[in-house]
């Protein structure tokens, strides 16, 4: 165990010395990998900021239930219990408000400024109706199920039409899904780019250290002993690039937040983009190091086999 730890220490030291020896190349490669990592990191940062915002949105779909014009008032009033029962199938608090046709007409006259026109109609053309509000839905998915609810309400006796204003909810949910998928695709693509860049960097290291590798083999070095410094080099490259990318994203938030603040004030909001938290940052750093390690692993396996 001590021997293994000692050999890891030796390999880490070798990797550090190698990086310091070729520091300009290392800095350049770190910069290239950091650019590749910065884009998905920035996207993730944006999503992490938008997710709580979207969850805090009060998702209160409204469903308007219109009775047939000839439905008697008693039939309309009796429907309230059925509507509450159906609304109870959805999570959250449901409130049901009965709007008699007279009240609806008054509201129309008051709001639209078409009082004179409405007065010429003679009889009230509006039906009795209900407005069902589903408050406290926290998830967009739950709100999106409102369509199913509307279909049930439409099948009630005396109901002529049901209008749901949940379209925007579905659009928002779809947009966030697209953003998440785009980010995943971007992350995967740029992850491959990172692996390729590290692969090529380690390939050059293997070639420049060919003599050392051959001599080490002649004096009894195992493949693991030979490979370890390259693995550490790859992981260090990924780690440093990840740190630079996180730093760059955090720095970019400063001017972005200035612009966002101006926009948010228009909506009386204090919304600001916050940098990723320590746990998320550590996870991303570990991911960056793992990508670097993967690139080194593929490269060393391939190029050491050629030196055999």
């Amino acid at each position, binding site marked *: 165990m001590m021997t293994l730890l000692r050999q890891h220490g030796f390999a880490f030291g070798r990797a550090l010395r190698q990086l310091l020896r070729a520091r300009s190349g290392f800095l350049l490669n770190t910069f290239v990998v950091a650019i590749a990592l910065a884009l998905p990191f920035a996207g993730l940062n944006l999503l992490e900021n938008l997710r709580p915002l979207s969850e805090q949105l009060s998702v209160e779909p409204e469903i308007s239930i219109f009775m047939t014009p000839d439905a008697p008032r008693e039939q309309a009033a009796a429907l309230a219990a059925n509507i509450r029962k159906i609304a109870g199938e959805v999570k959250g608090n449901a409130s049901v408000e009965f709007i008699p046709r007279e009240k609806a007409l008054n509201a129309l006259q008051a709001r639209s400024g078409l009082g004179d026109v409405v007065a010429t109609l003679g009889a009230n053309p509006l039906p009795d109706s209900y407005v069902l509000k589903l408050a406290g839905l926290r998830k967009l998915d739950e709100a999106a199920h409102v369509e199913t609810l509307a279909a049930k309400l439409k099948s009630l006796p005396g109901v002529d039409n049901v209008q749901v204003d949940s379209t925007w909810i579905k659009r928002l949910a779809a947009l966030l899904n697209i953003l998440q998928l785009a980010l995943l695709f971007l992350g995967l693509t740029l992850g491959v780019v990172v692996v390729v860049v590290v692969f090529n960097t380690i390939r050059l290291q293997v070639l420049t250290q060919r*003599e*050392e590798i051959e001599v080490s*083999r002649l*004096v*009894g070095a195992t493949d693991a002993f030979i490979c370890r410094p390259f693995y550490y080099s790859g992981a260090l490259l990924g780690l440093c690039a990840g740190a630079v990318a996180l730093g760059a994203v955090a720095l970019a938030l400063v001017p972005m937040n200035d612009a966002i603040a101006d926009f948010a004030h228009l909506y009386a909001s204090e919304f600001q983009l916050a940098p990723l938290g320590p746990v998320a940052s550590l996870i991303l750093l570990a991911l960056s190091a793992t990508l670097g390690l993967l690139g080194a692993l593929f490269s060393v396996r391939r190029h050491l086999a050629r030196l055999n």
Partner: protein
Amino acid sequence: MIEFQRVTKRYSAHNIALSDVNLSIAKGEFVFLAGPSGAGKSTLLKMIAAIERPSSGTLTVNGQDIGKLKSSGLPYLRRNLGLILQQQRLLADRNVLANVMLPLVVSGATSQDAEKRARAALDKVGMLDKAGDEPLSLSGGEQQRVAIARAIVNRPQVILADEPTANLDRANAKKVLDALQAFHGVGVTCIVSTHDEPDTANRVIHLERGRVLESAAVHASLEESA
């Protein structure tokens, strides 16, 4: 200890480096491999170190069949061998001491132990005062003695030296051979290739065109002819 049984090494149909070699080298022997360039001396040494594998026949080193030895077993075989090549292959990016420490480091020795033993090995070949020097600043003879120190630092059972005096003047060549004789004196098996006829009382194996012509002690044949 080292046994060649009908060993052939064929690089291609027309390039046969060793042909049907039968040879046995006992523990503690000092053996010269003599013959002109292309006789197969280097190939024979490389096969003992498992750098090359037999095309046919059986070669055993310390009881291990080189033809069947897995690549994972190679490092452990080589840790018992000390290799001295014509080109010393000292690493230019580190000093003499670090070069000699390398076989110990790959074996997992602590840096303190490795340094202590490397200094002792350099002392044995008279190069301790050059421990901090860069290999490229040394003369050919000095580089060869550093290579010997690197070969013996792991206390190998066998030293394989491929024309270690080829590029050296007479004085330096003598120092190198004296160093090898000293290790032989403490029980190390030494196999040294040379394209010159060795002036020695040790066993000489003559090779030509990949075949062993003669394997006998020179002094014995001299006594017989007298």
